[in-house]
């Protein structure tokens, strides 16, 4: 088992939003998070990635293997496409794989400054980071925003053929059909009840 989440509760703005979230993902599998806007998909992913503490429950995955990506992809507009990717490769102390440019259709854009890219191209650059850093456990928040159908397919191919086939796992919040074979988890039933305990405001009630 690669990622095991047990009875997790998380909060946003001092109020519990989700409770009792429990799931397991085996190596090579992905999980798609579903749920209405505001249900807490982003909160859950940020909690899983360790950006905010959980109210209760446990999250288990191999240490030093998680990576997080949100719709803000940290692309620096004055750096070229290659420089952006090389930076992340260096931070994670990994070589920059050559095939990454082909996989995300960035070969012709290699030396372009990121400022001159379209929104979709920038998005592809941001996602290519995931192929560079080589982390096994990915937490992806709306990865396909502003991608066209062709780019969505590129990304799904990367997830299926590279990431998952090499034993990685991914938790993905998305509203569209990625075209990868993965179970879905509807967060609706985990919505915290008004009586849920543990929010930081609780002491004042």
């Amino acid at each position, binding site marked *: 088992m690669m990622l095991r989440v047990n009875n997790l509760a998380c909060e946003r703005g001092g109020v519990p939003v989700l409770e009792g979230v429990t799931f397991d993902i085996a190596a090579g599998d992905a999980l798609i998070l579903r749920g209405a806007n505001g249900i807490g998909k982003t909160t859950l992913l940020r909690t899983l990635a360790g950006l905010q503490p959980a109210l209760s429950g446990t999250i288990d995955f191999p240490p030093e293997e998680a990576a997080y990506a949100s719709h803000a992809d940290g692309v620096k507009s004055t750096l070229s496409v290659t420089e952006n990717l090389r930076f992340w490769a260096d931070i994670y102390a990994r070589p920059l794989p050559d095939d990454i440019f082909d996989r995300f259709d960035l070969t012709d854009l290699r030396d372009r400054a990121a400022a001159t890219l379209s929104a979709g191209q920038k998005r592809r650059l941001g996602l290519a980071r995931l192929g560079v850093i080589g982390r096994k456990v990915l937490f992806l928040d709306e990865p396909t925003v502003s991608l066209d159908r062709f780019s969505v397919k590129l990304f799904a191919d990367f997830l299926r053929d590279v990431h998952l086939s090499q034993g990685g796992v991914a938790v993905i919040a998305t509203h569209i059909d990625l075209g990868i074979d993965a179970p879905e988890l509807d967060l609706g039933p985990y919505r915290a009840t008004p009586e849920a305990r543990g929010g930081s405001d609780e002491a004042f*009630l």
Partner: protein
Amino acid sequence: MSIWEYANPKKFMSTTAPVLPWVFGLAGLCLAVGLVWGFFFTPDDYRQGSTVKIIYLHVPSALMAINAWLMMLVASLIWLVRRHHVSALAARAAAPVGIAMTLIALATGAIWGQPMWGTWWAWDPRLTSFLILFLFYLGYVALWAAIEDPDTAADLTSVLCIVGSVFALLSRYAVNFWNQGLHQGASLSLDKEENVSDVFYQPLLLSMAGFILLFIALVILRTRTEIRVRRIKALLTRARRA
């Protein structure tokens, strides 16, 4: 029974409600007796004349200006270590009172300094240190005001308070190094032979007690307000979700 029980907002509210009027009353009594005694029933100083009597406002307010910051430091540490909301809110509540005390100390100092040194203001180490302390207070209050999420604000202001304390201390020494002063040494200390004489000492102690009690009363009052504000916010958030 542990002291931390009082860090629960509800327990704090119910405990302080009956105590608060007494603290205010006692503060008023100490201040009234101390100040009237000091102003009207003590002799003039042989050198300073009647101007010395401002000591009954100047020394206690200066004392509280520094102790308010110390209290904020302790409260910030408690918040960071034990996550008691009352502690963070008490630190927030104390800051404006500390600012008021610092301003009173600076103003009474200027009024005292004019006849004594012939100037309203001098870049003397003690005076300058208080001015710097005032700036630290301003930054602290501004940071609280600028951040919306109350827990984030509590965390960040606590970190600022701790770092600020170190730098305030450093500034104190730096300022000493930078200029020798006009200001007399501390008028009161336990290990010194030559304190102010008893005639002045007793009313001064009373007015100091009055200032301390007044500070405690104001901080409790303001902490209660902050707790109510948080409670309203928490209830509103939940009402919106339900």
